[in-house]
């Protein structure tokens, strides 16, 4: 980021380093992308989508630990469960079979 001072007005200029990559997309995804976004705006769209996916990925990593922890806490509350695998399967399909 570069700060340029012009007549006491602070203008923030973001200088982003851009990297050029080549990616391959299946036909259907490519056509959908061109149809929705347009050829000239693909880089911006991909950058935004990747940024969002990475944030979601980071968040879900944390939340998985939380989910597993909460399941463990509930299991402690329910006490020991002694069902065999066959009994568990029967319970899962009770009423169906």
């Amino acid at each position, binding site marked *: 980021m570069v700060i340029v001072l012009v007549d006491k007005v602070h203008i923030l200029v973001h200088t982003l380093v851009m990297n050029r990559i080549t990616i391959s997309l299946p036909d259907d995804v490519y056509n959908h992308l061109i149809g929705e976004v347009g050829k000239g705006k693909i880089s911006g769209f991909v950058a935004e989508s990747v940024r969002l996916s990475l944030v979601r990925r980071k968040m879900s*990593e944390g939340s*998985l630990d939380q989910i597993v922890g909460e*399941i463990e806490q*509930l299991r402690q509350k*329910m006490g020991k469960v002694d069902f065999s695998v066959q009994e*568990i399967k029967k319970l*899962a*399909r009770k009423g169906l*079979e």
Partner: protein
Amino acid sequence: MKGFVIDASVVLTYLLKGDKEFVSLLKKIKKDRFELVSLELLDWEVRNGLRFSLENKDLAIKLMILYEQLPIRKLSLSSGLWEEVLKLAYQQKVTVYDASYHVLGLSLGWEFLTRDEKYERRVREIGGVRLWG
């Protein structure tokens, strides 16, 4: 992307009795770029399993809500695959429920993980099934 197909015996055992190995598997999903998939049938079986194994309704509901947040993608079988399910069920004398998980695995080229020894023994010659736990 690679992955495993899982059935209700794996998920319900984890929810009701605990399964450290399954937790490790869940945590590896992000790191090792694979996924866990199942059928929509899993949702019904897990909920029914909780309903009939836990007397405490509130506990069962909480557990169900947490189950729904686990990273397990549910898929549907196409009509062509249902034909394979019925063939397998008749041929190996197994239920359509079990055969459907198995055929999903075979169609994806991924192993089907189950805790059901009986099923694994019955279909061993066909392959594609790994006894979990």
